[in-house]
C-alpha cells in the first residue's frame, strides 16, 4: 500500500478501532488519539523530507474507482498540497494535545476528530474531482457533529445553519464538477487530465456558468463576503478544538480549490472573470476587518479576522489572473503568497482559537468587556495571546508578514487599486488587535469567575508550537517557499509566460 494512503487513512482506522473497543478507559483513548496524530504528523514530515516537492506530483497513485465515468482513486502531493497536508497533520496533533482535559464523551470526540483528519488530509491529496468532492462533503458532516455534539448553548442551531449553508456550496461545486466532466473530451473527472485538456477554452457561456458554480461553491467554504454569514455563529458555538480545525483547515479547502482546480483547469475563463474575484477578495478584506473591529466577543472577532485573512488569498489568486502574461514573476509571487497565507493563517488562527477556548474554560464567556488585566494573573496566556495577535496582524518576523508581503507585491501590478485598498485591512486589524491586547491583558484586573488561572501544560503544549512555527516561518521562510515555488510556477505557467 502506498505510503501517502497510509498517512491519509491511518487516523480513520484508529477511529474505528476506538469505537470497536468500548471498554477502553478515557485516558487510554486520549493517549491513543495523541499517539496516532503524532505518528501521522511524523509520517508527513518524513514524506516531505524524503521527497521535497518539485515539479510534478510525489507519491502519486492512480487506481480505477468508477471507470464508467472515469473517476479514480488518484492522489499525490506537490508544493501546493504538501504544506497544507503538514499543516493539517500538525493542527490535528495540537488539537489532540489540547483536548487532553476534555471529559465529555471522549471516545466519540476522539473518533470524530480522527475521522475528520482523514477527510482533511484526503482532500488535500486528491487529484480526482469526485474524490475531492467526497472529502469536501464529509468534512461538512464531520464538523457538523463536532459543533452539534460538543458546542455551547445554541450549538444545534449554529450547526444546522453551518451544515445547510456549506452543503449548498458543496452541491454548487458538484454541479461545476459535472459540468467540467461533460465539457471534457473524453469525459473525465481526473484533475491532471482536465488540466492537460483545458476543456473550456473558447466555450463562452458554458465556461462562465461552470466558473460560477465552482466559484460559489468554493467561496461559501472559504468563506468570502457575501457568503460568510454561516461562519461567525459556527465559530462562536463550536468547541475550541473544533474552531481551530474549522478555521485552520476547513476554510483552506475553499482557497485550495481555487489554486488546485479552478485556476489550472479553466485558466482562460479565470483570466476573463478574475476581476470579480479581486473585488470579492478586497471587499472581504475590508469588510471582515471592519466587522471584526466592532465585535465585543473575542471568538466572533477572530472569526471575522478569518474572513479578512482569507480575503487576501482570494485577492492574490484573482490578481494572478489579471497580471499580464509577460509578468510571470508577479503572478508566481501572488500564487506563492496565497499558499503561504493559507499555512500562516492556519497556524495563527488555530492558536488564537485554542487561546479563546482557554478563556472560555476559565471565564465561561467570550465577552471581552468581562476581562481585564490578565497579564498579571496569567502571564503565559497573556504572552501567547500577544504573540498570536501580533502574528495575525502581519508584523514582520511572523509568517503572516511573509505571506502578505508576497501577496501585495504580486498583486500590485495586476490590480493596483484593489491592492492599495487591501492595505487598509492591515491597518484596521492592527488597530483591533492592539485594542484587544490593551483591554484584555492590561489595565485593572477583571474576570467573571474572579480568578483567571494560567495555561495548563496541555494547553501550552498545543499552542506554543503553533506560534513557534509561525515565528520560524517568519524568520526563515526559505524551506517553505522552496517547497511551494515549483508548483506555483507550474500553475503560473498555465497562464503563459
Amino acid at each position, binding site marked *: 500500500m502506498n505510503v501517502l494512503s497510509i498517512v491519509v487513512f491511518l487516523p480513520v482506522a484508529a477511529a474505528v478501532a476506538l469505537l470497536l473497543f468500548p471498554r477502553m478507559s478515557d485516558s487510554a483513548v486520549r493517549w491513543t488519539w495523541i499517539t496516532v496524530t503524532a505518528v501521522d504528523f511524523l509520517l508527513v514530515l518524513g514524506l516531505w523530507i524524503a521527497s521535497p516537492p518539485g515539479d510534478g506530483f510525489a507519491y502519486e497513485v492512480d487506481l480505477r474507482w*468508477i471507470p*464508467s*465515468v472515469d473517476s479514480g482513486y488518484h492522489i499525490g502531493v506537490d508544493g501546493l498540497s504538501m504544506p497544507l497536508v503538514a499543516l493539517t497533520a500538525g493542527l490535528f496533533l495540537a488539537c489532540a494535545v489540547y483536548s487532553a482535559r476534555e471529559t465529555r464523551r471522549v471516545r466519540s470526540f476522539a473518533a470524530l476528530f480522527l475521522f475528520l483528519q482523514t477527510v482533511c488530509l484526503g482532500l488535500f491529496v486528491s487529484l480526482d474531482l*469526485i474524490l475531492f468532492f*467526497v472529502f469536501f462533503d464529509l468534512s461538512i458532516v464531520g464538523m457538523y457533529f463536532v459543533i*452539534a*455534539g460538543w458546542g455551547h448553548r445554541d450549538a444545534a442551531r449554529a450547526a444546522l445553519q453551518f451544515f445547510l449553508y456549506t452543503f449548498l456550496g458543496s452541491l454548487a461545486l*458538484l*454541479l461545476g464538477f459535472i459540468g467540467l466532466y461533460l465539457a471534457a473530451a473524453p469525459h473525465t473527472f481526473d484533475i491532471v487530465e482536465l488540466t492537460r485538456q483545458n476543456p473550456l477554452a473558447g466555450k463562452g457561456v458554458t465556461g462562465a*456558468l461552470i466558473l460560477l458554480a465552482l466559484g460559489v461553491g468554493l467561496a461559501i467554504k472559504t468563506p468570502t463576503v457575501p457568503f460568510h454569514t454561516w461562519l461567525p455563529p459556527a465559530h462562536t458555538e463550536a468547541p475550541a478544538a473544533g474552531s481551530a480545525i474549522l478555521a485552520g483547515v476547513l476554510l483552506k479547502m475553499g482557497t485550495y480549490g481555487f489554486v488546485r482546480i479552478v485556476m489550472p483547469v479553466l485558466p482562460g475563463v479565470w483570466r476573463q472573470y478574475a476581476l470579480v474575484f479581486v473585488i470579492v477578495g478586497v471587499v472581504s478584506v475590508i469588510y471582515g476587518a471592519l466587522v471584526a473591529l466592532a465585535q465585543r466577543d473575542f471568538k466572533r472577532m477572530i472569526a471575522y479576522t478569518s474572513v479578512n485573512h482569507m480575503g487576501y488569498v482570494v485577492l492574490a489568486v484573482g490578481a494572478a489572473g489579471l497580471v499580464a502574461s509577460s509578468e510571470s514573476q508577479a503572478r508566481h509571487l501572488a500564487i506563492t503568497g496565497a499558499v503561504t497565507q493559507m499555512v500562516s493563517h492556519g497556524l495563527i488562527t488555530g492558536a488564537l482559537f485554542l487561546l479563546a477556548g482557554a478563556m472560555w474554560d476559565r471565564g465561561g464567556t467570550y465577552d471581552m468587556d468581562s476581562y481585564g488585566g490578565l497579564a498579571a494573573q496569567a502571564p503565559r496566556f497573556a504572552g501567547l495571546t500577544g504573540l498570536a495577535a501580533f502574528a495575525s496582524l502581519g508584523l514582520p518576523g511572523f509568517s503572516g508578514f511573509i505571506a502578505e508581503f508576497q501577496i501585495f507585491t504580486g498583486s500590485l501590478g495586476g490590480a493596483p487599486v484593489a491592492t492599495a485598498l487591501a492595505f487598509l485591512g492591515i491597518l484596521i486589524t492592527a488597530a483591533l488587535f492592539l485594542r484587544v491586547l490593551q483591554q484584555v491583558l492590561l489595565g485593572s484586573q477583571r474576570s467573571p469567575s474572579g480568578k483567571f488561572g494560567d495555561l495548563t501544560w496541555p494547553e501550552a503544549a498545543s499552542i506554543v508550537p503553533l506560534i513557534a512555527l509561525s515565528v520560524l516561518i517568519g524568520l526563515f521562510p526559505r524551506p517553505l517557499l522552496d517547497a511551494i515555488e515549483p508548483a506555483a510556477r507550474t500553475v503560473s505557467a498555465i497562464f503563459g509566460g
Partner: protein
Amino acid sequence: MMNENPAALLPEIFLALVAVLGLLLGSYLPRHRQWLVRVLSAVACVAGIAVTVTMWSGMDQAVFGESYVIDVATNATRVIVLLATLIVTALAGEVTGWAREAEFHVLVLLAALGTVVLAGAADLMLLAAGYLLASIPLYALAGFAKDKAGTEAALKFYLLGALLGVVTLIGVTLLFGVGGATGYTELRLDEAPPAAVAVGTVAVLAGLLFKIGAVPAHFWVPDVTEGARPVVAAFVTTVPKIGAVVATYRLVAVPLRDAGVDWSLLIAVIAAATMTLGNLAAFFQDNVRRLLAYSTISQVGYLLMAVAVAGRADLALPSVLLYLAAYSITNLGAFAVVCALPSAVTLEDYRGLVRERPWLVVSLVVCLLGLVGTPPTAVFAGKLTVFTAALDGGLLWLVVLGAVNTVASLFYYLRWVVPAVRGEAADASDIRTSAARMAYLLAAASLAGGVLSGVVLPMFDGTLLQ
C-alpha cells in the same frame, strides 16, 4: 419467429410457483409451522437472483411474441426487486405466528412478480396486467393487520389505484387505436395524431406514476406508509417503484421515442414537482413513517430526472438502475430501523437513543445521510450519475432544482438525526433484534455500495432492446 422459451422466465416462474405453493401450504399448515412459507419465499428470491446473474451476460431477447423483453433493465430490475423482497422477508419477523403468516408472504411474492413484469413488459396489454398484479396484492397488504389505520389506508390506496388503473386502460385502448398495435415494436405512433398520442401517453403514465408514487398520484403514499405495518410500508415504498420506473423508462424510450410528443418535458416537470412537493411536505412531519413517506416521494423526483433524458444521454439508463438499487437498499435500511423500534412512532421518541443503541443510531445516520446523497454512500453514486445524465441531456434547470432540493431535504432528515444523537437517554424501548441487525447490514451495504459503485455501474451499462 415466436420465441417461447420458458427458461428465459425462470425468475418469474419461481415467484409464481412459490406463491401458489405457499397459498396451498398456508391452507394446510398449522400456525406454528407457517414459517415454512417464509423460508420458501426466501429460497425463491435467492434462486431468482442466482439465475438472473448467471444469465446476465447472455444475449438480450424478446420472448413470447415480443411481449416481454429480457435486457439489462429487466435483469437489473429482477435482481433489485428480488433482493429487496428478500430483505423484506427477513424483516417480517412481526408477522411470525400470525394466523395469516403464509398469506403475507404470498402477497409479497405476487406483488414482486407484478413489479418485475412491469419492467419487462414490451406490450401495453402486458403492462396493464403487470399493473394489476403489482397493485392488488398491495391493497390487501396495506390492510393486513385489520386495524383501523390499516383499513383506512387500504381503502384510500384501493380507490386511487382502481381509478388510475381504469385511466391506464383507457390510455392503452387509445394508443392501440391510433397506433394499430399494443406491442412496443409494432406500435406506430410517429404517424398518429399527436393530440391522441399525448392523451393516451398521459393516461398510461397515470397508472405508472401511481405505482411510482410521483406527483400528482402520490396521495396514497403517506397514508399507506403511516397506516400499514412498518414492514409493509418498507415494501410498498420500495419495491413497486423499481418496476414502474423501468416501465416508464421503457415506454418513453421505445414506443414514444419518435412520437411527436414532448414526453421529456412532461417527465421533467413531473420530476420537478415530485421532488419539490415531497420535500416541502416532509419538512414538518413529526411521525417518522410519514416523514419517510414524503422522503420517498422526493427520491422519486431524482429518479425521474434520468428518465426525462432517456435515450439522450449515455448514462441515463445505468444511472436510473444504479439509483434504484442504491435507493432500495438505503430506504429499506431506514425502514429497518423503524421496524427495529416498534414503539417509537414520532421523532421525539428517538431522543437520546444514541446512549441506548449507538450502532442503531449510526445505521440510521448512515441511511438518512445516504438518502440525502452524502458521499461515499450508494445513493451519492446514484445521484452523481443521475445529475450527470440530466445535465448531459440538457436539463440544467432540473439539475439545479435537484441540487437545491437536496439541500432542503437535509433539513428534515436532520430533524430526525439531531434528537437521536443528542439529549438525555430516554427509557429503554423494546427492540426487535433481527430488524436491528438488518439495519446494520443495510447501512454497511449502503456505504459499501458507494465505494463499489465502480464495479456495479458497468453491469448496468447497456441499452434497451428496441
